[in-house]
């Protein structure tokens, strides 16, 4: 594969809009930054004089902290904004809020927003590099990048590998971004969950669908288990957490009964005892904490590559 020197885009709006070469470039850069993060002095001057605004219109702990650490490791100047204590509640539009912040000379915007496409909307109206830190049920590209990078570290080249995504596919930006990313890297992707949580046309995105947990686990090399997003469900899509845990919860005896070990991933935060039991999350098969570690390096890579295209 031809290696790019620079990303083919000015924004990271979604994995959908990246070329496979972009992803490879991000991975290569991530490897370098991961090495930096393991040095005694973890800070590099790459983003000195660049100001990044972290705009979180939706709750986030790990993504916000991960971005903030990545920015600090790169020596960027940072401003943080979160919607709870903000002007948003006073009825200001997104465009006004962001334009106000940009007029204070901000170069890059990292944004999480509950509306799918919010970043596209912004990209049409403002002049900063925009990084999508999650837009509703659309995309969460840095999560998919860190997931794929973590998989790659664990099982090598993803071409032909079997990756299963479990849980609430209907409300999950992580699932969508994972699907786009893994497809671009040549993996086989299967989604598994109760039928009401699987979008009717998901197969058109190039994945297969299975509703049986055990069969899917038996099939896959890597299991990416999603959080049940109760807060994003406007209707009742399944009867109870109890039934969900019984039929779609991954536990130790189930994993032990498979004929091969599989890698367990989870984007967090985990509902222990619902989609995954504590002993599975904490087992050797789980790379959940490596995902978090890689998150910082991946975000450094994205920030760095977008900034160097400025």
């Amino acid at each position, binding site marked *: 594969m031809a290696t790019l020197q620079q990303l083919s885009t000015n924004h990271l709006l979604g994995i959908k809009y990246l070329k496979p070469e972009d992803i490879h470039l991000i991975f290569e850069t991530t490897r370098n930054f991961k090495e930096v993060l393991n040095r005694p002095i973890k800070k590099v001057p790459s983003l000195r004089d660049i100001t990044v605004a972290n705009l979180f219109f939706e709750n986030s702990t790990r993504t916000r902290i991960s971005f903030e650490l990545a920015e600090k490791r790169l020596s960027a100047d940072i401003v943080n904004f979160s919607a709870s204590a903000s002007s948003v509640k006073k009825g200001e539009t997104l465009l006004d809020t962001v334009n106000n912040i940009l007029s204070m000379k901000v170069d890059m915007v990292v944004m999480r927003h509950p509306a*799918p*496409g*919010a970043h596209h909307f912004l990209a049409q109206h403002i002049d900063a590099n925009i990084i999508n830190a999650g837009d509703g049920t659309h995309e969460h590209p840095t999560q998919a990048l860190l997931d794929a990078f973590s998989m790659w570290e664990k099982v090598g080249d993803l071409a032909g590998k079997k990756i299963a995504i479990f849980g609430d596919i209907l409300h999950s930006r992580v699932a*969508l971004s994972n699907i786009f990313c893994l497809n671009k890297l040549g993996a086989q992707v299967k989604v598994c969950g109760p039928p009401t949580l699987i979008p009717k*046309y998901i197969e*058109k995105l190039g994945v297969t669908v299975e509703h049986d947990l055990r069969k899917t686990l038996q099939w896959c090399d890597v299991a990416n288990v999603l959080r049940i997003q109760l807060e994003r469900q406007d209707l009742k899509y399944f009867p109870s957490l109890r039934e969900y845990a019984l039929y779609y919860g991954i536990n130790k005896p189930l994993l032990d009964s498979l004929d091969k070990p599989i890698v367990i991933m989870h984007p967090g935060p985990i509902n222990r005892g619902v989609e995954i039991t504590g002993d599975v999350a904490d087992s050797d098969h789980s790379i959940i904490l490596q995902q978090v570690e890689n998150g910082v390096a991946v975000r450094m890579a994205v920030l760095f590559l977008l900034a160097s295209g400025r």
Partner: protein
Amino acid sequence: MNYLIRNVTILDPDGPWHLRQTNLYIRDGKITDPGKAPGSVKEWDLNGAYCSPGWVDIGAHSGDPGFEHREDFSTLADAALAGGFTGLACFPNTAPVTHSKPGILYMLRQSDRLPVDIYPTGAISMDCAGTDITEMMDMHAAGAVAFTDGKQPVQHAGLMMRALQYVRAFDGLIINRPMDLAIAPHGEMHEGYTSTSLGLTGIPALAEELIVQRDLDLLAYTGSRLLLHTISSARSVELIRHAKSRGLSAMASVAAHNLYFTDEDLAGFDSNLKLAPPLRSADDRKALLEALLVGTIDLVSSNHTPLEEEAKKLEFPYAKSGALGLETTFSALNTARPAPEKLAEILAIRPRKALNLAVPHIEEGAAANLTFFDPEMEWVYTGKDIRSKSRNSPFVGRTLQGKVLGTYHKGELRKNP
């Protein structure tokens, strides 16, 4: 002002001068023998373009009363005439809702002073809330041409049935936008590949088809008259075709936008393409275009829904549904490439038949109510062209084929630049 319109081809199916290539002399608002035109009269040469009785749209939203910041009657009339429409059957989703005699009379009073005819529709239910039936006889007597809850689809089958029964007393027309809101209460666009890939909540075509089937069954039961407003799916077309073959008095319209765009056009989250009904698949669009040509779909609606910038220049899920339509309906319809004669039938004849209005035929001595158009002419619809008070058109910047050249109605000639 008197005019001599040179070199027009008249399209007036069932009219005495149909297909005649001629000059039209309009004196004091009346069509007169061109031989009697004096030398000094104002002339306009149409170079063989077409002229039909003025067009009528069913389904525009007036804005007045209640939403005058979106559209007032004067901008509405300008937009309508620019789009070739000399008559508008406006929907009752005003504030207050047009759901009683005073509302109808208010609309008719506007009609008297405007360069277009307003044909008011009355609501089926009070406040279009879908519960209590309105005084439809009284509104009919006052001049309402049809009854509909407009953009609000009737959910309750019992209400729909009684409405269909009730208007039989005066051979009235019930118009419903078919949509079962419980299937996708937070739906944002057509359910399919694009909605899945954008993470937007899908509205399955099923949500429409269930109500199309329900309403057609209710129509068969009541023996009434029904217009299904802005159907959008291939299966809805099939259901209507079947109902017509059974001899039911069922009509259907399609929104002009659905003839031009598909759900794939939403890939960039353009909120001007957030519409009700939603833009559906390429296969649905093809079925709609074909159905229009063979007459399974009777009418094209502008579905003209002016919305202020504050309701549209927003993140996609927060933007309201709807787009301007009057000025671009003809060009969108023209993507089906109907024969010119068919265009006249779809835009001038069928809407009047649906509403029981007389067709203003083009003949000696008749009051001139005319639309001039050229189906071949290409033009670019720019933001500057917009006559409406709102700006929410997805057609801005597009090269369109088929242009309205002008109108003559109520003694006034309007030429488009």
